[in-house]
């Protein structure tokens, strides 16, 4: 009787421990983008960066607006908002076109609701470019930012 009871308790304890471990695993999404796009981030021209992330041939779209300052006095901190009015957005990439390394950030998105903002460095006056994948198609938009003092060093 006692032995049976004990083994049942032990068994139950094992199940509890297992479910706690699973829950802990689910709460810690340590999985990140499979690989950092070495070729894309190390590309030193916009054309190379676009082709490295498979984004050549994107079409300009009025469904993307880039909100950034017309003039950035400090190129080290340029706020860039991307407002997307397109259905089924899957990814967004942001470029400082004349930066030493034009690709700044790349995002895969789920349940995206049309707004993404970050702060980027800009070496000199140039376009900020956003590339958006939506519904399996690629779209792009640009906004020129005049940079007074470059923010990339070098």
């Amino acid at each position, binding site marked *: 009787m006692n032995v049976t009871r004990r083994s049942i308790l032990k068994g139950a304890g094992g199940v509890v421990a297992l479910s706690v471990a699973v829950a802990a695993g*689910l*709460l*810690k*999404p*340590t*999985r*990140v*983008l499979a690989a*950092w*796009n070495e070729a894309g*981030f190390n590309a030193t021209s916009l054309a190379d960066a676009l082709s490295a992330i498979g984004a050549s041939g994107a079409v300009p779209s009025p469904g993307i607006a880039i909100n950034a300052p017309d003039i950035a006095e400090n190129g*080290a*901190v*340029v706020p860039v908002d991307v407002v997307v009015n397109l259905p089924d957005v899957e990814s967004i990439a942001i470029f*400082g076109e004349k*930066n*030493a*390394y*034009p*690709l*700044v*950030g*790349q*995002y*895969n*998105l*789920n*349940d*995206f*609701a*049309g*707004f*993404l*903002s*970050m*702060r*980027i*460095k800009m070496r000199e006056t140039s376009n900020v470019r956003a590339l958006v994948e939506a519904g399996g198609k690629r779209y792009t938009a640009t906004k020129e930012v005049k940079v007074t003092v470059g*923010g*990339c*060093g*070098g």
Partner: protein
Amino acid sequence: MRLRAGNGEIRVLITHPSENGLRKDGSGKLIPAHFIKFITVAVNGKTVLEGNWGGGVSKDPFLAFKVKNMKAGDKVSVNVEDNTGEKGSVEEAAR
């Protein structure tokens, strides 16, 4: 790392040098690259954003974005990893 979530928007501010490897220090020596490469944001365990960053992200990186269907009380978590393998994470309930 600071995280705020509410009204469908998630905002993350990370204290990090975000050095691109191109800047020189006072004595003219290059400062080694030190920047965040990976950022992942999940709501109730479901990944809503997987990001890759380069050294062109400003010092003390800031990211904000809007997601559909986020409710008050939803658990929002952020995980980051930089090019030296250093990791950080934060979790907050949405307001």
